[in-house]
Each structure stands twice: as C-alpha cells, then as structure tokens.
C-alpha cells in the first residue's frame, strides 16, 4: 500500500468514527424528553419580551460599560508597562498579574462586599456600577497585554519619524502610534468583548433585582420557577444572537483593513 492510499484510509476511518459518534448521539438521545424539558414553546413564548427588553439589554449594558472601563484601564496599564520609568512598569506588572490570577468572581465579590466594609464606601450605580467596575478591573488586566503587544507591533520608525518632526513622546504616541496599534488589536479586543459578555453572567452574585437581571440570571430564575430547562435554551440562543454577528462584523472589518493596507 503506498503512502497516499494509507493517508486516505486513515482519514476515511476518522471521518467514519466522527459520523458514527454523531449518529449514535442522535439515535440514543431521548427526543421527546428533550423537547419537554428544553424546548417548551409556550414557556419560551412567556419569556418574551422581557428576555430582550430587560435581560439582554442589561447584559449588553454591563458588557459595554465594563469594556469601556477595561479599555481605558488597559491603555493606561499598557503605557505604564512600556514606560522607561521602572516603578511604573512594576506597578503595571503587579496589577496585571494580580487580576489575571484571580477568578473574576472573586474580584466581583471584592468590589461588591469587601470595598464597602473596608473603606465604608460603595461603588455607585447599583449592579451596573459595581458590576462594570469589577469586570472593568479584570478586563483591564487582560487588555493591557493585548494593547501593549499592539503598540510594540507598530514599527519603531513610526515613533522616530514623529519625534524627528518635533512631536513630543505623548503627541507621537497619541496621533501616530496608537491609531495604528488599535487597528492591530481590534480582533483580539473583540474577543475580549465576547469574553466579557459571557462574564456578565457572574454578576448575579451582587444581588440583582427584576429590573437589573442580566440574561443568565433571568434564565436561571425562569428555570427554577417553571421546573423546566427551556429558558436555558432561550438564553443560549440570545447569547449567540449577540456574539455571532459581532464576530462576523470583526471578520469583515479585518478583511477590509487588510485590503486597504
């Protein structure tokens, strides 16, 4: 048997096993039970319009605000990390290592419960305020590394050319380097946005009210009220309805900027 035939045989076997696994899952699944427990049309209908107008809206709001906080924080940390001033670099590294090392849930609870006790102040804005500050703190740590990599991907000659024209370091950074760096980091930052969107499902620990529930809490409450899993299916589809267009949009943006370059 020659090499090519052997390769074809191996690949054919793998495809066969895969198809076998899918088919047996489809056959073995208890479809009527699945339909009862996870796809009850009436229960699904009851969730509307609140699943969109309250839950999805809150999820997007929490995500957007956390992302904004994270972006600002991440930019500051990235600039500190490439600074020639050593203490700035140390501070940035300490922050990044700390909040990347902790589970997001711990940070959320720290902002929600430790800060009020320790400093006798509460982050204003209820769940929205506390939640987006907490997630923003975590996101900043991740985004800092991404943004730093983006800045370092801009050729050194760009900064030099800007400086040779008399621009100060900050002018050159703001009007020459960062605009190019951000173009580079749009795809990884979108990834960060999607991760944040999913992390908003942790905010229920802050104690949400019917009006501040995000998607996951909304679905969970609906599940326990009805002793049925259908809400899980609904919120899963709503999550996907938000994230899929987003990743598609970025893919398109990437193609377009690649073309312009």
């Amino acid at each position, binding site marked *: 048997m020659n090499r090519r035939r052997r390769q074809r045989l191996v690949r054919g076997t793998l495809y066969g096993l895969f198809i076998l696994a899918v088919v047996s899952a489809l056959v073995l699944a208890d479809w009527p039970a699945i339909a009862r427990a996870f796809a009850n049309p009436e229960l699904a209908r009851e969730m509307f319009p609140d699943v969109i107008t309250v839950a999805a809206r809150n999820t997007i709001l929490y995500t957007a605000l956390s992302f904004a906080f994270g972006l600002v924080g991440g930019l500051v940390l990235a600039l500190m990390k490439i600074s020639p001033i050593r203490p700035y670099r140390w501070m940035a590294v300490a922050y990044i290592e700390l909040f990347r090392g902790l589970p997001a849930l711990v940070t959320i609870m720290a902002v929600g419960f430790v800060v009020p006790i320790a400093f006798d102040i509460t982050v204003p804005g209820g769940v929205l305020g506390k939640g987006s500050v907490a997630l923003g703190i975590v996101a900043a740590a991740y985004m800092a590394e991404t943004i730093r990599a983006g800045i370092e991907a801009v*050729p050194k000659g*760009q900064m*030099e*050319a800007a*400086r*040779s024209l*008399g621009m100060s370091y900050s002018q050159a950074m703001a*009007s020459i380097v960062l605009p*190019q760096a951000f*173009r580079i980091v749009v795809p990884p930052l979108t990834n960060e946005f999607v991760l944040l969107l999913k992390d908003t499902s942790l905010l229920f620990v802050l104690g949400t009210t019917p009006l501040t529930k995000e998607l996951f809490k909304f679905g969970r409450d609906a599940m326990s009220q009805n002793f049925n899993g259908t809400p899980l299916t609904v919120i899963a589809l709503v999550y996907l309805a938000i994230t899929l267009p987003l990743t598609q949009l970025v893919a398109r943006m990437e193609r377009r900027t690649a073309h312009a370059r």
Partner: protein
Amino acid sequence: MIPAIEVLDLHKSFGPLEVLKGIDLRVMPREVVCVIGPSGSGKSTLLRCINLLEQPTSGRILIEGDDITDPDADVDRLRTRIGMVFQQFNLFPHLDVLGNLTIAQRKVLRRSADEAEEIGRAMLERVGLGDKVHEYPSRLSGGQQQRVAIARALAMNPDMMLFDEPTSALDPELVGEVLDVMRDLVADGMTMVVVTHEMGFAKEAADRVVFMDEGVVVEEGPPAQVLEDPQTERTRRFLRMVLHT
C-alpha cells in the same frame, strides 16, 4: 558665522560596543556634506545622534549654537529645525499623503488646518507629487514615498536636512527621482548632511565628503580630493570596493 551643526568629541556605545569613537564635525549653513563609509562604520548612528534619536554616550552637539545634548534643552523644539529623511521612508500609513504632511505642522507648530494644508500642497508640488494629495502611502512607489517623506520634513520649514541612506531601500530605477529632488534642495541652498552610497551624487552635489570607518572620521575634504585622490589606504580600499560593484 555660527555653524548649523557642530559635533564635538562625540562618543556612542551600545552596551560594550563602541560605535562612535570621538567624532568632530562642523557643518556650515548652506553647506552640503556627504558621509560615506562601509556599513557598520557608525555613519547612520552619527546622523541619528545629531537630532538625538540616539542619546550620545558623551560629547556635545550644537544646533545653530544651541546645545541639543544639554539636559535642559528643549529637544522637541530644536528638532523642528532639523528635517530628517529615513532609509525606510517611515510615512504614517494610517494617514493620506496630505495628512502625513500636515499632522506635525498642526500639532507642533500650531498652524491652522488651512495654513498647514496650503503649505503641504506647496511642498508636494515641489517634489512633483501635487496629484497624490489624497493617496495613501501604501499605494505609492518607493520613490514616491521617499519624495513624500522629504516633503513632510520640508513642510516644517527646517533650517537643515539629514538624509539617512535615502535611496538604499529603493529599486534602482526609482533612485533617480529621489536624487533629483535632493539636487533641487542643494540648488535652493539647503544645509544638508547626507549618509549615502551614491558616489555620483556625492561627487556632484557635496561641498565636502566625510569618510568614516570603525567609528572615526578617517578623511574629509572636497569631493574631488576624497573621492578621486584619497589620502589614506582605508579610503582607497573602500572606494575600490564600491566603485567595482
């Protein structure tokens, strides 16, 4: 008359490697100086020290009498008097040609948008690219990009221009258009320091040729002398090598 550039006992080391070992150089206003030498001789480092893109290890550099190496010097301000052109052009790829020419005028010289644009267009005409105002750098040939880079430096009305191997990254057929622009600058009386391998340009355009090797100035003088009747064996060897390839 105050020299445009005065370099005094300049030393520059990168770690243990000493690249410049005591350079003295004086460039008078309207003078054109070409710096030649083998790669690794320190000529680019010398040029980059003049506008402090590299921090000298020791020595002083005076720009029209002002010490740019003084810790209290307003380096950003002094740099606006010195235009620089790089081997790799270094145009800003996210801005169109006019944006490349106006951004520093507006941010640094605080010119109005209209004024910066007017000057930008005039400079593009000067380098023969008046029709490329709204083109992006990536759509231009190397020669055109380098001419835009020259126009960008000129738009700041510098008193002098530094060229760091401006034609070394170009395809051979594009070298001429860049050298033509540089010849026009020479004719206009611009003070210029040109690090180059273009011996023809050095011969016809330079008032003085400086030959560097291993971090020191080996020989300097009028092009007729340095290029045609070199006084040292090192210069002769270098010239034999470049002229025979």
